[in-house]
């Protein structure tokens, strides 16, 4: 503690779990927007990641409410947010935005996308698995040309609805912070937009990572035009994101409101590692340089520089750094917003528990959980391209998923 803080500010109210919440929903929104690139904007290169991106979004979305629930003082009353929402409250909308996104966008899109495969797997497999797939088709087993065309149309339209929904999902999370006028670190009209673009950055990086890692595990060749394209989009997204962050930063400095002194002190001391080192240098500048140099983003004729082997390594490193950087952004927003006193006269510290309801152990578990769910989803609904007939019966779940 340094300077004066209000006595009630001694305890930080939102800790690691609330850092995870925007991080995880950001990954959902980002992965979905990446998936929409292929579906709506016809970016054919990223097609190998389309289904993986959808399942990734679903896996992370299923986990998204858990950190919130774990953080509540009375999780058993959480249903009140659905039954008696305060319509003036930004947070009250969470349940509805979430339910809309899960039920109307992701589940429907996944269902339409996989329906034909589920019908086939139901026919090819036996026993419980057969019944499971049959149940998942919801009885819609028509795979005629006309029905499949309907699936495709429906999927396309859901994606078109899904893009603004993904913007809503994560822009809304930004609004929860940006609309708190009591907190000068949060209160910014740019907050939802910054959240959104950082979400896109994190989602692209995550799918890039997952695609490369799963290809490695499955011993399949990595589709270089695909990862080159992903790296290019990642580069552009980072450029937009960093420009917005810079605008916010310059605007604050230029306006130089009464909070500027304490915020500057906070950035120089409490947030030096997480903001300057992790977010800015390692999470933004290094990936920008790496991707700018190696990816085709800045090169004429979309040709990439360096051997494929080297590029893969560079993309891997850049994507990992980007994930660390975006996590730091969430940390700096959520925790940073509570490290200075609203009296603007002092700084406090965040002491994270190791165990306990909001401790490091729970946080790590919650961050690992979506990967396990994704593993299960991939086993259930293999996203990979189907090898025509040659694999024969029983190839419903490819070995690559194990």
């Amino acid at each position, binding site marked *: 503690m340094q300077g*004066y803080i209000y006595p009630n500010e001694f305890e930080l109210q939102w800790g690691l779990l609330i850092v995870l919440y925007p991080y995880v929903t950001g990954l959902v929104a980002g992965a979905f927007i990446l998936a929409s690139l292929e579906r709506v904007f016809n970016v054919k290169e990223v097609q190998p990641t389309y289904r993986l991106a959808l399942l990734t979004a679903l896996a992370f979305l299923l986990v998204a409410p858990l950190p919130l629930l774990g953080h509540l*003082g009375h999780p058993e009353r959480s249903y009140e947010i659905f*039954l008696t929402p305060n319509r003036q409250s930004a947070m009250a909308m969470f349940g509805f935005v979430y339910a809309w996104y899960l039920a109307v966008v992701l589940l429907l899109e996944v269902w339409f996308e996989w329906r034909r495969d589920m019908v086939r797997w139901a026919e090819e497999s036996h026993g419980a698995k057969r019944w499971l797939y049959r149940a998942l088709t919801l009885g819609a087993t028509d795979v005629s040309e006309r*029905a*499949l065309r309907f699936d495709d149309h429906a999927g396309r339209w859901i994606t078109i609805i899904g893009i603004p929904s993904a913007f809503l999902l994560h822009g809304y999370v930004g609004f929860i912070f940006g609309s708190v*006028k009591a907190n000068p670190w949060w209160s910014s009209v740019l907050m939802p937009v910054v959240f959104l673009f950082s979400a896109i950055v994190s989602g692209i990086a995550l799918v890039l990572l997952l695609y490369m890692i799963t290809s490695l595990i499955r011993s399949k060749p990595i589709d270089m035009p695909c990862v080159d394209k992903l790296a290019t989009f990642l580069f552009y997204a980072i450029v937009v994101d960093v420009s917005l962050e810079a605008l916010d930063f310059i605007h604050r400095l230029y306006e130089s409101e009464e909070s500027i002194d304490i915020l500057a002190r906070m950035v120089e001391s409490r947030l030096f590692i997480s903001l300057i080192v992790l977010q800015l240098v390692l999470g933004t500048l290094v990936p920008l340089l790496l991707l700018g140099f190696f990816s085709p983003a800045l090169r004429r004729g979309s040709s990439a520089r360096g051997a494929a082997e080297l590029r893969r390594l560079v993309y891997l490193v850049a994507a990992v750094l980007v994930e660390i950087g975006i996590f730091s952004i969430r940390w700096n927003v959520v925790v940073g917003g509570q490290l200075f006193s609203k009296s603007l006269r002092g700084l406090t510290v965040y002491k994270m528990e190791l165990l306990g309801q909001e401790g490091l152990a729970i946080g790590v578990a919650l961050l690992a959980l979506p990967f396990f769910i994704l593993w299960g989803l991939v086993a259930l609904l293999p996203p990979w391209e189907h090898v025509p007939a040659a694999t024969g019966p029983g190839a419903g779940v490819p070995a690559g998923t194990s």
Partner: protein
Amino acid sequence: MRDEDRAPLPTTPAAPPVDRRRFVQVALAACGAATPVLVGLVRLPRASAQGAAAEAAAAEGYDPTGHRYGMGIDISRCIGCGRCVAACKAENDVPLDDHHFNTWIERYVIRTDGAVTVESPNGGMDGFPALAEEEGVRRTFFVPKLCNHCENPPCVQVCPVGATFTTRDGVVLVDEKYCIGCRYCIQACPYGARWFHPTKRVAAKCTLCYHRIVKGLVPACVEACPTGARIFGEVEQRATPLARFMRFNDVQVLKPHLNTKPKVHYASLDGEVR
């Protein structure tokens, strides 16, 4: 591209093509039918919750509509003894540690070079130590703080379930049987007036001793103040101590630029106080 890569599938003659479309139609119709039911659910319990509070007050023969409570604080009268803080903790069952307070006192020391030091050891409950150095002090004063019971309360606005609300007589309260403990209200309060109850696991704050004022008593802090630095009363009526205080003093509120419209009014408020 995707379609070409897929294995050709045998068409199943069993299911007619209308099946799925029919399913979607029925599902959509069901959603449409369920909406009014859901909206009804959304409104009803909230109405009954507020009704319960009003009923309890009415049972005691108290009519909240005739009142609009607020507080006046005369900074020049506060001696920083901390009796108000102790009285509040005893009256309202506030944890006795040094980081949970409904009300607290800050001491400001402004030096001739303009440097400002603020402190509030144990919320001022045990009084303040003598100044180590009186040289170079331009002015010093005590400022009692508490919930401002804002007309335009950000905490009430953000509560996702409506567990924190403004009573009809203008007091901001928390329904502790209803609060889910998300702590958004604590973040939204610009004054640091809210805290999280460590055992009840709900948001807590100054109630203006609502249980006392509906019986015609004054809040515990006002009762305990030996110098009359705290003035409790009606904001809008003319013949009350608070109305007198506001008539004969230049009063200000804290952080007026945030447009929260506090109902705690300060006399002799220094510009350094935030």
